[in-house]
């Protein structure tokens, strides 16, 4: 018996001992806080996926990165417009709208006290452009003169074979090599596949090429000049986008080296663990990263060197990572969190809204939930009926969006008939007249015109949705509603809903293994191209292989158009064409259900999720 008690007692002691090692560190005391600005605590279902500002694309990361790094320009509280960040003012373009000259604040500092200089921006933007970095959003920097050429040139220099992947068109590739006649020799390898030039030699060539080719120049420590390929109406918006954050060259360079290894690999890579390490990472935003425990908690504390720290509404931001949304609500009710960034479970959303919970706030998003139709002429060696636009139009016109919004979602989403969410882009007039509304009678006629009267002859339609991940179970509920109308209203014999796990859904989407699929897109910046570009013939996101020379031509013309309003009109025409061709069926505009006490905090919510958490004040009772 004694041995038994010894075992149980030992286990309890061991458990408590182990637990003490693993308990989250208690929050340290706030510094002197005479204004009682305190702590803003928010709950999210996941922690950051990547805190490298030049590399990531996840909204959960962006929310944090906007607090940790300050871009040239930032969004005003409420997200309506831009205001100066590290730049002293919003510059007027020169050189026919192609050149912007930013003057940088002399008082801007990194968290280690060093000044933020123009070269830090040059270094960061170059890093985002380097193929070595594999930035999710390198393409945004292609707006800058020479950006895309530099990216492709460097990719070929490190691995010449990559050029075929980067520039698929043979003529364009030949023209590119003509512009860089020495490239092939510089990238050459010997019989064993080892590069003839050392990584250091290739890097020296790269730095020289960047300076020669790319329109990003540090004129002096506090002047940054950026020249664009063509005038780009939304470039200033990009200057507030986290990919365009500066990074401290004097620190990051210490953690950056050549991959080396076999074949003398010249790829340059930064130690990926640096970005989330509170002891090493250096930032220039309102906050610094002071604590991060995986799956548990992340703490940002006021950056003592932040130039505008007197304007801050709070001194600390705590992210509590709470995977279970019900538990998050309990924590909110218990006063342990001030804000839940979003409730995603449809049933919970409905329950909160239908019960009239006073702290549930539905915030419309600049994002569209839509269905996409495969436009390939053939699938599995058989003719694809959805290649006929009349079939796609019929499918689209049969979707009762109001029913989906009211009965399936019911948490603040609104019907969307356009691909670009209406009224979200200043000056952009949505082509509602070209939209395909709910008209099952006309849909049946269109199907008959396409040669499938009463749905006869249409093969089984495979509808791909994800049951896990983004949208989760609601995707399946919507698919069931749509399957029913397609079968009942159009007479389509069989609609098969395929609902793999998220990663499989993404892979099948990429391969184009679907006839129809659910999709969604939140805009990155306030311009229609953030949606419309995805359906260009050559775009890597064009999974359905929609290809319309007219559509491509309109987008190309818009890209070259200097006059802002004419450009938006061209984009409107492109969207009108898109809606008529129906490679996509917009269904609804997203809404996020946030939980917070409006009496306590004003978050300055907006459709584009451009939050200024540093300015949020907490009025505690």
């Amino acid at each position, binding site marked *: 018996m004694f041995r038994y008690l010894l075992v149980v007692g030992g286990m309890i002691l061991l458990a408590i001992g182990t637990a003490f090692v693993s308990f989250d560190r208690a929050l340290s005391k706030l510094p002197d806080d005479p204004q009682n600005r305190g702590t803003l605590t928010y709950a999210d279902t996941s922690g950051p996926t990547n805190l490298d500002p030049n590399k990531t694309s996840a909204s959960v990361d962006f929310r944090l990165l906007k607090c940790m790094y300050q871009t040239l320009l930032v969004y005003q509280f409420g997200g309506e417009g831009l205001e100066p960040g590290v730049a002293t003012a919003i510059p007027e373009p020169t050189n026919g709208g192609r050149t912007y000259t930013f003057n940088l604040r002399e008082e801007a500092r990194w968290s280690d006290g060093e000044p933020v200089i123009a070269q830090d921006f040059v270094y960061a933007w170059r890093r985002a452009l380097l193929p070595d970095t*594999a930035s999710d959003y390198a393409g945004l920097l292609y707006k800058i003169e020479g950006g895309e050429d530099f990216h492709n040139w460097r*990719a070929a220099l490190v691995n010449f074979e990559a050029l075929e992947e980067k520039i698929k068109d043979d003529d364009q590739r030949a023209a590119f090599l003509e512009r860089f006649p020495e490239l092939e020799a510089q990238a050459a390898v010997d019989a064993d596949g080892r590069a003839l030039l050392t990584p250091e030699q290739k890097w020296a060539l790269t730095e020289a090429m960047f300076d020669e080719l790319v329109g990003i120049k540090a004129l002096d420590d506090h002047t940054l000049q950026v020249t664009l390929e063509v005038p780009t109406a939304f470039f200033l918006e990009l200057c507030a986008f986290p990919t365009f954050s500066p990074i401290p060259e004097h620190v990051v360079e210490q953690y950056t080296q050549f991959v080396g290894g076999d074949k003398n690999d010249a790829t340059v890579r930064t130690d990926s663990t640096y970005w989330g390490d509170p002891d090493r990472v250096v930032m220039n935003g309102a906050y610094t990263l002071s604590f991060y425990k995986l799956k548990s908690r992340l703490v940002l504390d006021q950056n003592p060197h932040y130039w505008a720290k007197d304007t801050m509404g709070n001194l600390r931001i705590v992210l509590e990572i709470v995977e279970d949304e019900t538990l998050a609500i309990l924590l909110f009710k218990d006063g342990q969190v001030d804000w839940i960034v979003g409730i995603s479970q449809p049933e919970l959303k409905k329950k909160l809204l239908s019960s009239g919970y006073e702290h549930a706030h539905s915030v419309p998003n600049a994002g569209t939930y839509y269905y996409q139709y495969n436009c390939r002429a053939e699938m599995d060696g058989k003719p694809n009926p959805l290649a006929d636009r009349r079939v796609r139009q019929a499918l689209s016109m049969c979707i009762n969006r109001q029913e989906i919004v009211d009965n399936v979602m019911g948490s603040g989403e609104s019907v969307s008939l356009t691909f670009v969410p209406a009224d979200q882009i200043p000056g952009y007039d949505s082509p509602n007249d070209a939209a395909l509304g709910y008209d099952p009678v006309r849909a049946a006629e269109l199907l008959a015109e396409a040669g499938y009267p009463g749905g006869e002859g249409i093969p089984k339609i495979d509808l791909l949705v994800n049951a896990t991940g983004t949208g989760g179970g609601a995707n399946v509920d919507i698919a069931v509603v749509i399957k029913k109308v397609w079968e009942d209203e159009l007479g389509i014999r069989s609609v098969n809903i395929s609902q793999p796990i998220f990663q499989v859904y993404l892979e099948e989407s990429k391969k184009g293994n679907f006839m129809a699929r659910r999709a969604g897109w939140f805009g990155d910046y306030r311009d229609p191209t953030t949606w419309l570009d995805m359906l260009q013939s050559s775009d890597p996101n064009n999974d359905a292989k929609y290809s319309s020379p007219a559509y491509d031509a309109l987008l190309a013309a818009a890209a070259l158009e200097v006059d802002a309003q004419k450009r938006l009109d061209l984009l409107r025409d492109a969207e009108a064409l898109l809606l008529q061709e129906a490679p996509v069926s917009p269904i609804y505009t997203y809404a996020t259900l946030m939980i917070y006490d409006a009496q306590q905090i004003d978050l300055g919510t907006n459709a584009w999720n451009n939050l200024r958490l540093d300015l949020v004040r907490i009025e505690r009772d």
Partner: protein
Amino acid sequence: MLRLILSRLLQLPVILVIILIVTYAMVWLMPGDPFLQDGAKRPDQATIDAWKAEYNMDRGPVVFMGSYLTGIVTEFNFGESIKMRGVKVSDIIKDGMPVSAALGLAALAVALFLGTLAGVVGALRPKSAWDTASLVTTLIGISLPNFVTGAILLAIGAGLTRLFMPDASFLHAPLGGWSGPANMILPAICLGLAPSAYIARLVRLGLADIMSSDFVRTARAKGLSRHQALFKHALKVAYLPVLSFLGPAAAAAMTGSFVVEKIFNIPGIGQEFVSAVENKDQSVILGVVLVFATILIVFNLIVDLAYAWIDPRIDLT
């Protein structure tokens, strides 16, 4: 005994390598691409290839596995997570494993205490109200899934106490998280209930059998009371099946429970493994499987040694 320990420990790396290879083969055959993500415009294929190169996944499964094993042996490097860039798998294990282990140990202590108590009561007073109560309790313990018991415990311990006794904050169980010993109580009970039910049944059945055996009768004839015979002689023997159950149970409890960790928002390794499988985050899967397998093998060895410690008649050699 020493030879047994040495031979088991020498077998360990071989078994682990086999487990890793089999696991990786399954991961490799799984559909899905971990480098694809929703909510971001897809970069070109060359960029995706560059990501793959970062993770040593651009030259086929054999090269990956070779470099992965080499990394473990030479640098104790388990690679990096794909879904959480810049996070080393060793850090995920280092952060999550102590949490799950502490919770698992606490749950096992709960299970041993409750299970033994219920089993002994049932054996001492068969067919009494106590016995019936313990049988019903164990049946509920086995039948109810963790997410139900977890929700009930949370509702009672954290919800009702706040509702009816708002001023008695010492009674308010934490709503989740992992910041102090109080955070362990509810999840440990939740995780310990099911194994306690098994232990209760094993103890009760074992004792019922042993209490009528010759050596206990002899002990009673020598003047020992029923209680003395039970605690001095019978319980030790009745505990042997509990021990064999305890090995895998301890490994299971210590490697985390996805459900309990999610309900109580505990940053353990159980949640991590499930999300890694969903995301096909292969380095995380391999790292966690390696740790799980090690724990399972080591615990089985400990159980075998405990067998010999408790019952000297058992010869492990």
